[in-house]
């Protein structure tokens, strides 16, 4: 029976669901997660480090307190430039369990996000057939941005105290630090600066410290 429920729950990993309640014994603890999706994308693109972490703790029967933190150190190479980006971002919020079975949970909630970051352009080349090519740098600017998120998340226990899960995020930018020397840029933790709202997706692996 448990394997059938696990199968059904895994199916729900891919599907949005309406609110309903389930049965099962819950265990409490602090769950520490690592963002596999950001790390995998960063690794495949070979641009540097994008390490995202999350932690959640049960609060009452149906609530979770959530805190995320991430560190980004990228060097993006494009046509005629190298662009380095250093960033720290964090999110905090609350999830509400709309369905749970034993230690698996589907939840919805909100986050407040904050990111501080800077860009620096090196080896900048602007081709000019008339006057001659320009070579220079783009000086670093320190920027900050804030946003809020509505989230839909799912976590399932793979085996004792080890979970996988994803979080789908609908984000709305509250305030954007203005980079005068770039048309559009990536706000770590949020997305492209030119989008006042955007979607995000993170896939996590978790370890729960029971208490």
């Amino acid at each position, binding site marked *: 029976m448990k394997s059938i429920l696990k199968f059904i729950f895994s199916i729900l990993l891919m599907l949005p669901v309406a609110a309903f309640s389930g049965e099962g014994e819950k265990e409490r603890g602090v769950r520490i997660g690592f963002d596999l999706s950001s790390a995998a994308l960063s690794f495949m693109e070979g641009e540097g480090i994008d390490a995202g972490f999350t932690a959640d703790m049960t609060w009452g029967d149906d609530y979770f307190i959530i805190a995320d933190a991430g560190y980004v150190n990228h060097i993006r190479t494009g046509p005629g430039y190298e662009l380095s980006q250093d960033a720290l971002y964090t999110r905090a919020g609350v999830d509400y369990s709309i369905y749970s079975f034993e230690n698996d949970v589907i939840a919805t909630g909100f986050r407040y996000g904050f990111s501080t970051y800077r860009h620096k352009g090196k080896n900048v080349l602007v081709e*000019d057939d008339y*006057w001659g090519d320009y070579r220079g740098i*783009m000086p670093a600017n320190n920027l900050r941005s804030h946003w809020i998120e509505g989230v839909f998340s799912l976590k399932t226990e793979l085996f004792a105290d080890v979970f996988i899960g994803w979080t789908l995020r609908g984000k709305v930018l509250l305030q954007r630090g203005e980079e005068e020397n770039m048309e559009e840029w990536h706000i770590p933790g949020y997305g492209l600066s030119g989008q006042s709202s955007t979607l995000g997706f993170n896939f996590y692996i978790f370890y729960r410290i029971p208490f």
Partner: protein
Amino acid sequence: MTKRLLILTAILLVVISSCEKECYHKPKTMLNADFFTIEDEEELEVTLEGVSVYGVGREDSLLYENADVGRISLLLDGNSEETGFVMQVGDMADTLTFHHTETPFLYSYECGYILHFEIKDYGYTTNFIDSIDVVRTKITHRYEKHIKVYF
């Protein structure tokens, strides 16, 4: 099932990461000069016939050659703090000189950098030009009117 989901997620990540954009259009930052004349205290747009323009030091390469134009767009020199242009109409010539700063501007990740400029000072000769008025000192890749040239 969870293994399938992990594989599916990995495939999704590969697909997402392989969706790289391309650079379809990279603009140039041009200083736009519009031509005017004053008649009865009224500013009128004017088209000049047979206009040739080249950069000072680049006499071998014309930007405009015997063109009938009411506006010229000029590319400033990012490697210098001063850019000069010679404008000829018939056997008359005038020189426009702009003192400026340049700033690298990342137009897009796909296209790379262009330059933006800011005019700090300017000068001109008056063989057939009457005067110049700078209406916008910041010169970006967006189309804007920067100077008015009166004849």
